[in-house]
């Protein structure tokens, strides 16, 4: 894998001074994906599933071909792939449909402080409505979810386990396969937030044996506005739709109606057609490079950068042992929002704040953090520019009296 060549695929990076280190928020999009969106709009930009004319047939084929690509990408079957607006709406679908209809005050839901708000808040809502108890896996001293700690909260009452595969703040990989096995022994279903996993590592839902798994297109070189929910077929078919309208129904009477089978009963209205087709192009793009190569590259950049950061001093890294390309850190005594303006001045894009994960920020006992996240288009030179800027920031803020 040659990130110098890959960089040229990304029009935003035509600006050679730009250093993009915010992939965990959203990745840049390669020309191959952008052209695919144009292709839809220019050549067959019509609705799917409805028209009995050739052009609509073409659009429908492309849309469904993309579903096929997604199912192959995570080793699922075609009917188990629901297109959503993003990982957030996929995770909400699980909670609103499965959660609200299957849980009672006798049950327990396991989440963690390491979750993105989109994984914890839907279950908080289910808990408030059904009175099912929300239980948090205690994080270990590094801030990780461990099998050992998971066992401490798993009980006969556990009905749902909702955890992340890779943390968006700490970049840790959760031992999700072991957790799923243990949860199944208690008869619980497991919903996995894979938004930070899908862009960086191969996922095999059959091997994991997860019940639900969600991810977003825009973090993996795909368009915004498209996400995926995988669900085991039997579970999906037993779940009620949460949105009603066109295309999801079968027979409609004045006081009753029936629904199509999954995935269609969960996809009402005109779907994000161009975005779904674009996601298929993104998957082709990533598979062509190889996810293992991407993961290895990111880890190398991360290790290299963390080593240099430690040499600078006055820098606190919160996740030194993480296995992926995310670095959570702060400059001693400098609020992340002050720091970020300095990096922005050097044309380095990165994130400061809560990262939509206030619980882990509180767990870290800080007001907010800075975050660097690497991807396939980042190079050692990007790391060096970041390190130089970090030194500059540290020196500048000291000089003005921080």
């Amino acid at each position, binding site marked *: 894998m040659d990130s110098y060549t890959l960089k040229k695929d990304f029009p935003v990076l035509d600006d050679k001074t730009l250093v993009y280190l915010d992939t965990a928020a959203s990745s840049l999009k390669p020309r191959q994906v952008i052209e695919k969106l144009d292709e839809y709009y220019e050549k067959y930009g019509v609705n799917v599933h409805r028209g009995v004319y050739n052009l609509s047939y073409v659009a429908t084929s492309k849309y469904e071909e993309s579903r096929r690509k997604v199912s192959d990408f995570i080793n699922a079957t075609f009917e188990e792939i629901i297109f959503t607006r993003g990982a957030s709406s996929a995770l909400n679908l699980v909670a609103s449909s499965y959660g609200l209809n299957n849980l009672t005050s006798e049950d327990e839901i396991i989440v963690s402080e390491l979750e993105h708000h989109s994984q914890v808040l839907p279950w908080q809502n289910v808990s408030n409505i059904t009175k099912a108890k929300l239980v948090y896996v205690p994080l270990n001293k590094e801030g990780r979810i461990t099998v050992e700690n998971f066992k401490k909260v798993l009980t006969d009452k556990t009905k749902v386990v909702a955890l992340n595969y890779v943390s968006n703040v700490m970049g840790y990989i959760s031992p999700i396969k072991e957790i799923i096995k243990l949860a199944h022994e208690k008869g619980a279903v497991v919903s996995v937030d894979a938004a930070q996993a899908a862009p960086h590592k191969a996922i095999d839902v059959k091997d994991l044996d997860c019940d639900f798994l969600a991810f977003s297109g825009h973090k993996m070189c795909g368009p915004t506005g498209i996400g995926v929910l995988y669900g085991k077929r039997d579970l999906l078919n037993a779940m009620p739709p949460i949105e009603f309208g066109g295309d999801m129904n079968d027979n409609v009477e004045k006081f009753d109606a029936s629904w199509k089978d999954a995935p269609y009963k969960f996809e009402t209205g005109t779907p994000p057609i161009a975005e779904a087709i674009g996601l298929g192009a993104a998957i082709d793009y990533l598979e062509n490079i190889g996810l293992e190569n991407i993961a290895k590259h990111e880890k190398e950049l991360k290790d290299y950068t963390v080593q240099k950061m430690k040499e600078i001093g006055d820098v606190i890294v919160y996740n030194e042992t993480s296995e992926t390309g995310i670095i959570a850190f702060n400059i001693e005594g400098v609020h992340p929002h*002050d720091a970020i303006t300095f990096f922005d001045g050097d044309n380095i894009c990165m994130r400061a704040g809560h990262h939509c994960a206030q619980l882990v920020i509180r767990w870290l006992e800080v007001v907010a953090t800075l975050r660097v996240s690497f991807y396939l288009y980042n190079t050692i030179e990007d790391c060096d520019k970041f390190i130089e800027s970090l030194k500059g920031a540290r020196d500048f803020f000291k000089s003005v009296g921080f």
Partner: protein
Amino acid sequence: MKDIQNLYRQVIMDHYKNPRNKGLVNDETYKTVHIKNPSCGDDITIQSKVENGLVKDVRHEGTGCSICCSSASVLSETVTGKKIEDAKEITETYINMLTNKEYDENVDLEEAVVYGGVKQFPARIKCASIAWKAFEGTLESE
């Protein structure tokens, strides 16, 4: 690179390191407004006491970056002792200055004028305005 020196002026750093009028009071004659910016974590509470048409006292408490915290301190010094209508005019002028709208340059913003440098950094305008917005809120019924 934009002039970051212009943003972190001495006045700002002084108020950040040594905030004036910091700490809330438990007194019903003060009006209290709390504003939080959930995306960045800035969290500011402003209290003001108005008596005989004058802003008698302004208190502040909260967490945030240097621009946010210092601006609460500068606010408290700038508007204390002013007539309500003058305090309102200063606040409006200050916000207009930050957001690049037309503003009356004859209105004396005193030390708060240094925040004009924030204009160059659109992502930081919120940081510099949240305390003043909260103060504006405390005067709403006046």
